[in-house]
């Protein structure tokens, strides 16, 4: 009997609100949470907007030492991790810790803390030989993002396999795919997984500025991210975190757990094309979709909803539209597609997990969140992108995809599990 990986708990920190409820409210209402950056003075930069989370670590229950020690992205992971643990109903301290794993996605790790400390140590870039006397005690934790997996593992009491999966902007999908593999192969019964990112600092903004990937619609930040719209002009950065409790199906059933859905298929592909560019034919994303569907024993026609990457760049829109058509054929035209980045921005290594959670909530509520800001569809993007308003639809199979720098293309098939309780 093969082992299956199901989702039994979710926790979220996102722009527009902390917690899964606030997140779903934003998505289902099709509101946007992108704004002019308040975390720092972004006026010198080309793109000055982001989806920022209104996150107060004190209010979220972090201790003074946690707040001092943890980068903002790790703080998100601990807070969302606690929500996911409680939502799962698992008594983590009753499990064999050796059977609990952690797989956390992040693209740029503790970059905000690193930049802050660099500015001090180099005295705003004056010295190449950074001054050792200004090094803070937790600098090494910022240096390598595995420290964030450590924090999450401590939070849940994991003593099984623990790792960070870092594949740029597909990290949030790939980490969950990795977690599902750990469960299916038998290395763990419960894996706390997901993605976290708090990249909003000058160096990140400049990275996207210099390659002109981000939107310059600074006079209208709430509508700046416009996937599939012909007036789109680039992505809007974001921050956030989604943590997911993934559990072996029989383990979940034995305790009568509520099951959101199953990670039924997952595949990743390298495009071998360009570190930041995408080939318009979408062949590798389509390959990933096909393998994920096959693994899920699902036909293209079973897909009831596609959660798109929808970053808001023309290149991406054409790429994934082509991939959907290539894999789903005529069914692609009949399937609602939507992109959450239009509402919460692009939180790099976290967004894939946020999209998984939003897709699971679509199962729960029989409601497909829309693509916001889609007023003038690009004629080259001729699928049903669920513009502006959420749509009622009962769905039992969701396809969610991601695309990232480095050429990574990932696809995951989520399926509703029959007799899943609640």
């Amino acid at each position: 009997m093969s082992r299956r990986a199901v989702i039994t708990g979710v926790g979220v920190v996102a722009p527009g609100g902390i917690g899964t409820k606030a997140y779903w409210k934003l998505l289902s209402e099709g509101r946007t949470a992108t704004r002019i950056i308040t975390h720092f003075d972004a006026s010198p930069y080309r793109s000055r907007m982001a989806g920022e989370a209104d996150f107060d670590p004190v209010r979220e229950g972090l201790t003074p030492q946690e707040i001092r020690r943890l980068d903002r992205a790790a703080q998100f992971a601990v807070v969302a991790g606690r929500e996911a643990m409680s939502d799962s109903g698992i008594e983590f301290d009753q499990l064999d810790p050796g059977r609990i794993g952690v797989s956390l996605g992040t693209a740029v790790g503790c970059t905000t803390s690193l930049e802050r400390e660099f500015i001090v140590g180099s005295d705003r870039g004056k010295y190449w030989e950074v001054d050792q006397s200004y090094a803070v005690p937790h600098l090494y934790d910022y240096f390598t993002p595995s420290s964030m997996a450590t924090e999450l593992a401590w939070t849940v009491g994991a003593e099984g396999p623990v790792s960070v999966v870092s594949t740029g902007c597909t990290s949030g999908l790939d980490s969950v795919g990795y977690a599902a593999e750990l469960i299916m192969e038998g290395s763990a019964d419960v894996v706390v997984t997901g993605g976290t990112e708090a990249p909003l600092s000058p160096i990140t903004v400049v990275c996207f500025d210099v390659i002109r990937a981000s939107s310059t619609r600074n006079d209208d930040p709430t509508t700046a991210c416009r996937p599939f719209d012909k007036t789109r002009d680039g992505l809007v950065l974001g921050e956030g975190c989604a943590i997911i409790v993934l559990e072996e199906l029989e383990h979940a059933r034995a305790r009568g757990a509520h099951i959101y859905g199953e990670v039924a298929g997952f595949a990743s592909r390298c495009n071998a094309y360009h570190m930041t560019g995408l080939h318009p034919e979408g062949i590798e994303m389509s390959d990933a979709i096909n393998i994920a569907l096959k693994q899920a024993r699902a036909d293209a026609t079973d897909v009831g909803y596609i959660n798109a990457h929808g970053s808001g760049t023309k290149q991406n829109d054409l790429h994934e539209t082509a991939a959907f058509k290539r894999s789903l054929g005529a069914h692609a035209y009949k399937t609602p597609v939507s992109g959450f980045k239009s509402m919460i921005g692009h939180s790099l290594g976290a967004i894939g997990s946020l999209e998984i959670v939003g897709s699971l909530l679509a199962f729960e509520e029989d409601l497909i969140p829309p693509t916001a800001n889609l007023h003038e569809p690009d004629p080259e993007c001729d699928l049903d992108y669920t513009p502006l308003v959420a749509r009622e639809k009962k769905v039992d199979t969701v396809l969610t995809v991601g695309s990232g720098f480095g050429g990574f293309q990932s696809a995951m098939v989520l399926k509703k599990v029959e007799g899943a309780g609640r």
Partner: protein
Amino acid sequence: MTRAVVTGIGIASPNGLGPTAYWRATLHGEAAIKPITRFDSANYWAKIAGEVPGFEAGRHLQGRLLPQTDHMTRLTLVGTDWALRGAGVQPNDIPDTDIAVITAATAGGYEFGQRELQKLWHQGPEYVSAYQSFAWFYAVNTGQISIRHGTRGPGAVVVSEQAGGIDSIGHARRQLRKGVQLALTGGMDSSLCPWAWVAHQASGCLSRNNNPRRAYLPFDRDASGYVAGEGGAIMVLETPESAAERPGTRIYGEIVGYASTFDSRMPSREPGLKRAAELALRDAGMDASEIDVVFADAAGIPELDKAEAEAIKGIFGPFGVPVTAPKTMTGRLFAGGGSLDVASAILSIYWSAIPPTVNVENPVPEYEIDLVMNEARHGKVKAALVLGRGKGGFNSAMVVREYR
């Protein structure tokens, strides 16, 4: 179950480039920890490292790649070229979607990142490189390998501090089991720049002894921390059926077991290294008595050395198996360390010799481990256990065996 064999090894180590030079130096105990030359260490208390000498990226890589790559990516790309060449894999030998790329990272292209941070804060945003968006990030090596060799199969990057080099190979083996034919895997790492150096110093793990022969002394009563180094290994891992398609392909050895565990924060719980080793042996379907050598993590930090010695003793009994740490010659290579240890274990099997641990003179008697000191031991090695740990609680273990 799908089997996974190593057919190509690319090595960039402080004591040798390529498997032949590396192995010759390692068997002879040639230590390469020296005063730092890559930056001026005058203002830092730690002044020694294991640097890869004689590596001229421009001799191996096209000019256009240089401005977009950090030193660690250049090492990785060249190491991958060598591994593929050693395995005799030509372009088009294998369908491009049947090749996976799985690498390990710890801190990304840190020197590249420091340079761009300095430009941003000293000169202004318009001076930042267009390559910054990917050249420093953790996923860069997998992406660059895929582009260079046109591989369109699965890609991943794992980060578990210094255990990651083993985890990447374990994950690559998973890809073979899922159906790909060949994986390029392992890690090459480098973070020898001032901005990385202050982080290394802050880790609390670097030795404060700047005598290259006395700084990194795992299992020794004078253990005082470790020395940082750069380099690592990239391997070609494939199924025996895939290797058989290229007649004459040399099979160095087989990856037969892998597991990873994590240490609880609660001191009452036993550290997870022993459990990782036991799980890896169970995964291999092997008994401890079949293991001929343990390549130790060898932290060089007294409490960690003690914990590792206890784990080894717990499985093999007192002085029950030869234990070695060739990383005493190179320093610890972060994401590259675990994969270089796996490569060393494979070479041990292939060449029937156990490389020595250098500089250690007074192993703590209570540890009761048979540390291979000073000189290599020659004789048949059929199977090896490789242990790795990462700061924060990561433990990984891998079992490699001669291919039969």
